[in-house]
C-alpha cells in the first residue's frame, strides 16, 4: 500500500487563463480538482461516469467530460470552465441567451450545457460532421444549423428538468447572431 503522503504530487493546471498550482493524488479527476481544490464549483458533478454532461469543460477549445479524466494528465492544456466564459464582467453571449430564453430550470446542468454549446458551435463552424450530417452534403460555415443537427450534437448533455426547448432556442440565437 502506498501511503497517502507518498501519493501526493504537486502539479499545475492552466485554468481560465491563470496558472494554478495544487497538490493532489494522481487519482483526482479534473472535475474534482476544479471543484474541491481550485474552488471552481461552477462545473457540476452529475453522474460522474460520462453519461450526463454536467461536468463539461473546454480543453484547448474542445468540449470534454471532466469526470472521466485524471487532472494530472491535463497539465499544460488550456482549460476553460463556466467561470472563464464571461469577459471583463460581461456575460458570454451563450450565457446571456440561456437567461433570455429560459434555458434552464434548476440550473444544475446549465454550466455543462453552456460549455458544451460553445464547443459545439465551434465544431459546427469548422465543418465537423455529426451522426445526422448527410455524407453528400458536408457542413461548412455557410450551412444552417438545423434542429436535427443541434439535437444530435447536444445529446451528450441531459436536462432532467426538460428545459430543452429553451436550450435549443438559446443556441439557435447565438448561432444566428454570430453567423457571417
Amino acid at each position: 500500500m502506498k501511503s497517502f503522503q507518498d501519493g501526493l504530487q504537486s502539479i499545475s493546471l492552466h485554468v481560465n487563463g491563470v496558472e494554478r498550482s495544487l497538490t493532489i493524488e494522481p487519482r483526482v479527476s479534473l472535475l474534482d480538482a476544479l471543484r474541491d481544490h481550485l474552488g471552481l464549483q461552477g462545473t457540476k458533478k452529475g453522474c460522474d461516469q460520462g453519461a450526463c454532461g454536467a461536468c463539461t469543460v473546454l480543453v484547448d477549445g474542445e468540449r470534454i467530460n471532466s469526470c472521466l479524466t485524471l487532472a494530472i494528465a491535463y497539465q499544460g492544456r488550456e482549460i476553460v470552465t463556466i467561470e472563464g466564459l464571461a469577459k471583463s464582467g460581461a456575460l458570454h453571449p451563450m450565457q446571456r441567451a440561456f437567461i433570455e430564453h429560459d434555458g434552464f430550470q434548476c440550473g444544475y446542468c446549465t454550466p455543462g450545457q453552456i460549455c458544451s454549446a460553445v464547443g459545439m458551435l465551434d465544431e459546427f463552424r469548422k465543418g465537423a460532421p455529426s451522426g445526422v450530417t448527410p455524407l453528400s452534403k458536408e457542413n461548412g460555415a455557410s450551412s444552417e444549423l438545423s434542429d436535427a443537427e443541434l439535437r444530435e450534437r447536444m445529446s451528450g448533455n441531459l436536462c432532467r428538468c426538460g428545459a430543452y426547448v429553451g436550450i435549443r432556442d438559446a443556441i439557435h440565437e447565438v448561432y444566428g447572431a454570430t453567423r457571417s
Partner: protein
Amino acid sequence: MNNFTYSSATGTNSALKLFSESPDRNARFLAGGTNLIDLMREGIEQPESIVDITRLPLAEVRELPNGDLRVGAMVRNSHLAANALVRERYPMLSQAILMGASAQLRNMATTGGNLMQRTRCYYFYDGAAACNKRAPGSGCDAMEGFNRIHAILGASPQCIATHPSDMCVALAALDASVNITGPSGERRVAFSDFHRLPGDTPERDTNLEPGELITSIDLPAWSSGLHSTYRKVRDRASYAFALVSVAAALKVEGGIVREIRLALGGVAHKPWRASVAENFLRGKAATADNFAAAAAAELAPAIPRRHNGFKIELAKRTITLVLSELAADEGAMR
C-alpha cells in the same frame, strides 16, 4: 478509486518501459480514459500504475504508398470521423464513430482505446453480481437475469456479454489490421483476430498480451464502386449503445453482388463479421429476397436468452434493409 503511480510517456519505447517497471506488471496504459477511468472508479480495474500515453506521437492519419490509410492509435474519435479521406472512402467508419457516445466523449476517446473498451453488461459492472469476466469462475448472473442487451451469437455458457463499440463494427467490415508493439517486438493482427469470443476465458476480451500497445490501425484501400453505410438501432435516437448495428459495403454490377462486407454490432462478444451472409450473397442477384435469405443464414445459429430474442429478427431486418438501400443507391447512380 484506489490510488496508483502515474507516469507520462513521451515515446512508444518509454511507454513499454514504464509499463514493464510496474510492480507485478499491474499497469494500464491511459489514453482517452473514457472507459478506463470509469472502470477504476467502480473498482473493476485496480492498476498499481498508470502509464499516460496521450502524448505519444501517434495522432496522425496518413496515406501509405500502397493506398492504405494508417490511423495512429492516439487519433481521437472526433478527428477520425471528420477526416476528409475517411469521410470519402469509408463512410461507414465515419458514421459508426459519430453514432457512438457523445461529442464530448468522442473528443476524448482514441482509436486504440476504442478497441480496448470493455463490455457494458450490468453484471460485469456490479461488484455484487456473479461475473466470469470480472471474477473468473464466479458464474454469470446475466444468463438468467436481465439480458435484453446481451449476445445472441458466439456466446458461451460462461459469458453472454456484448462488445460495446460502433467503430469496431465498421473496422471489422473494413478488413482493417491492428499494428502492435510490445516487449517481444512488433506484430500485426487482422482485425477479426483482435477481439475474442468468450469461450472458457471470458476475462480476456482481446488477444493483446500484457504490456503490448496498439500503435496504429491500417485501413486497406478499397476497389472503386464499393459503397458503404452504418445503421444503428438503439433505444433512443442518440447517445445509447446499439441493440443491433450493421456495417455494410456493397458493390453491384449488372444486378449481381460482386463484393460485399458485412459486420454486426450489439450481438456478440466481438464485432461480428457476417461471413456466412457474405458468402451466400457473393455472385448472387442483389435482391431483397436474397438479402433476407443471407441474413437468415447468418442468424441461424443465434441463441436467444429470455429478454433478447427480439435481436434475432431485428438483426435480420436491419441487414436486409441496409443492403437493399445500398443496392438501390447503386442503381440510382448508374
